């Protein structure tokens, strides 16, 4: 039965309303510092790395898979680029090598999952450890920083497009933000507007049925995991550029936040399916909470408890709502 009801609408848009509520709350408590163009630009830069990982994580989660290894892929990619810089290679060599590492690492996950038939949880837990160990091996366990990192690489995270023209004197739209928006557009086009993406949703809907109806599920899963790995590598490079250094653990925090962001977004799907624009809402919720709570001087441990509780309750409300309908 197709009837529009308030409760159904609330369930689907509840997470988005939650985001608005969070924004209004901080605007009320922090009228001086929160609702300013400069702060929003800061937030967009702060969340850009998480956003890239979460957007590309959505690609595998569309198929009901997920990838635990993105954090260590990001670290490894940063380390590989930095090690090549330290060895005197030009920026483009380091960056391409790092992206290749991400793509191949992701494809290896896909190979384990799709062709060998290991559960994604186990396969990517294993590669998480492998990639993390590899990052330590390449870097000898040390942080690569200082003169080893070329200025033009580190500069990427510092530059932005001046916004004087639209009346925001002195403000700049960070290149990091632009990079995240580009990734968002690419993933959105891929998932929503191409045959490739539609097939991924079909696999997520019923993998056995998809296989029997002539979809090459193995190859598609391999490619999807490869793209997730590539996204993780992009985020790893952005991170390394931002802190102008690379250490073998710096991507570690990205994985759980990225999965949380996709789950938050999934509460907005009609059938609980991931959509990349919904993932963006999830990323914004996490990023804005972090920014606002920090400005309110909330203790960082308390912050973690709060953010975790918000994720759990959003998903719980959606689960209860879905059971009702």
């Amino acid at each position, binding site marked *: 039965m197709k009837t529009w009801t308030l409760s159904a609408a609330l369930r689907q848009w509840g997470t988005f309303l939650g985001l608005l509520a969070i924004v209004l709350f901080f605007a009320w408590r922090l009228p001086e510092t929160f609702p300013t163009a400069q702060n929003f630009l800061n937030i967009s830069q702060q969340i850009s790395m998480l956003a890239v990982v979460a957007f590309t994580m959505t690609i595998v989660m569309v198929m009901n898979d997920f990838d635990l290894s993105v954090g260590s892929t990001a670290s490894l990619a940063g380390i590989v680029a930095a090690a090549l810089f330290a060895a005197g290679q030009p920026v483009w060599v380091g960056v391409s090598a790092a992206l290749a590492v991400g793509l191949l690492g992701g494809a290896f996950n896909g190979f384990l999952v799709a062709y060998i038939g290991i559960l994604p949880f186990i396969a990517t837990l294993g590669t998480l450890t492998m990639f993390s160990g590899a990052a330590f091996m390449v870097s000898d366990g040390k942080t690569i920083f200082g003169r080893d990192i070329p200025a033009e690489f580190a500069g990427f995270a510092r530059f932005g497009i001046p916004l004087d023209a639209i009346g925001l004197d002195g403000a700049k739209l960070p290149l990091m933000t632009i990079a995240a928006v580009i990734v968002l557009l690419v993933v959105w086009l891929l998932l929503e*507007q*191409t*045959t490739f993406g539609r097939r991924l949703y079909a696999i997520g809907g019923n993998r056995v*049925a998809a296989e*029997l109806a*002539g979809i*090459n599920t193995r190859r598609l899963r391999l490619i999807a995991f490869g793209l997730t790995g590539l996204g993780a590598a992009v985020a790893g490079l952005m991170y390394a550029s931002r802190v102008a250094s690379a250490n073998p653990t710096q991507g570690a925090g990205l994985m759980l936040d990225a999965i949380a962001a996709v789950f938050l977004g999934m509460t907005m799907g009609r059938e609980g399916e991931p959509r990349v624009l919904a993932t963006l809402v999830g990323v914004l919720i996490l990023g804005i909470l972090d920014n606002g709570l920090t400005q309110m001087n909330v203790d960082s441990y308390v912050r973690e408890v709060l953010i975790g509780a918000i994720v759990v309750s959003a998903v719980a409300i959606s689960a209860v709502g879905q059971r009702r309908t």
Partner: protein
Amino acid sequence: MQTLRFQGLTKAYGGVPALSDVTLSLSCGRVHALMGENGAGKSTLIKLIAGVVAADQMTVLRDGAVVPLRTAAEATKAGFRFIHQELNIVPQLSVAENVLLGHPAPHRFGAFIDWRSLEDRAASALAFLGAEHIDVRQQAGAMATGDRMLTRIASALVADAGAAEPCLYVFDEPTAALTVTESTKLFDVIARLKERGAAVLYVSHRMNEVLQICDDVTVLRDGRHVLTTQIAKTSSAEIIEAMTGKPVSDTIPGRTAPVRQRIACRLTTLTTRDLSGLDLSLAQGEILGVAGLDQGGQTAFLRLILGQGRIQKGLLEVLGGRAPKSPEQAWARGIAYVPRERRSQGLMLGMGVRPNTLFPHLGDYGFLAQKRSEVARTRTLADQVRLRFQGTEQPVGQLSGGNQQKVLFARAIAKNPKLLLLEEPTRGVDVGARAEIHGLIRTLSNSGTAVILASSDLVELCGLADRILILQGGRQVAVVDRQAMTPADLLSRIYAPEAV
């Protein structure tokens, strides 16, 4: 107990009536069939008397005395037992544990499970069903479907101390997942329950089963009661008319165009892991039936042609070339497949009619999706299969079983397949949809599509197929001509293929 009367059953979901003032009277020692098309209210009726869904109105009378029935626990206490088509066993546990599942397990010293007594109770319940061959210690997941069904029934038989003796057994489409032999065993069990003096409510779409094992029949249509009578005093035509509200001939349309000369598929002394001795060919426009016993290799046979088997010996030619190596290649070459389990193997239940119909054919649209032309194509195909739906984006999980099956057909015929593989195409489908699907298969065949039809519905096989391949344990034992073959003849060939 002599009679059980469910009076004035009424239920509406969100203002839409699902069941309106239906009364059902059951007598002990009799099997009562409940029939109706999908959506007629059978499931709602069962949910009400199981106490799973709260009725808007319902009175339950046992020999004239009121029985309270508001929760599932009260239904169990009243002695009602339910056996559903989905076989809810826990595959990791032993058969004995499954039989006693939901019952308090016998204990020793008040703390440890008394395994011996638990196994004894399970074994005696199975013995009553004539299923002594089941080892109660084995893992339940290792059993075939028929034995799982027996385990479920045994579980329903177990009566706890203090609770009433089971007095009503409700079977909801029990044979949907069973083969012919397994169904026969089930009918024996039902006969025993009947002798024991229990009332049995039997829900099924399969007319021949109902005529064979039931004593009375009640027909629902659109949530209302239309007919209750003794089986002996009625006919399948009368029942079908009551179900559909219009006279429907159960006859399957005959061939109107000859079988073509061109060969669609040829198997020469073919052996795979699951199949052996396959030697036959199939012409364009021909319908080859496939029949057999318990997992006799029907699925493996169709999947082989779909590109999912490894040929060990022999030769398989399909559509003038070599065998496809994957389902992807098979679909690309004009082979379409309607799988056995539409929910688990066929459909993305949460997704709309449009993606479900078109996703094997997305390649036709190039790299970028083109929603408008997809919607138009979906509508055309839906018309062709006479799909009843609310829109191309309606999730298929909301459609009735018959309409879900039609979505699979729409998907299969989208590109005029040269070879169509069908597995149980009308299982769990109401009479009207069944006739429409049969008409569709005949039309495709007349237009030159070669069809391989695996079915446990013998009426369907004899009515549609030109020849019937009989498999036993994956081995080809016969290819019989349909000419002058009745379902009864076919049944005897399946049971004793070598005897002929």
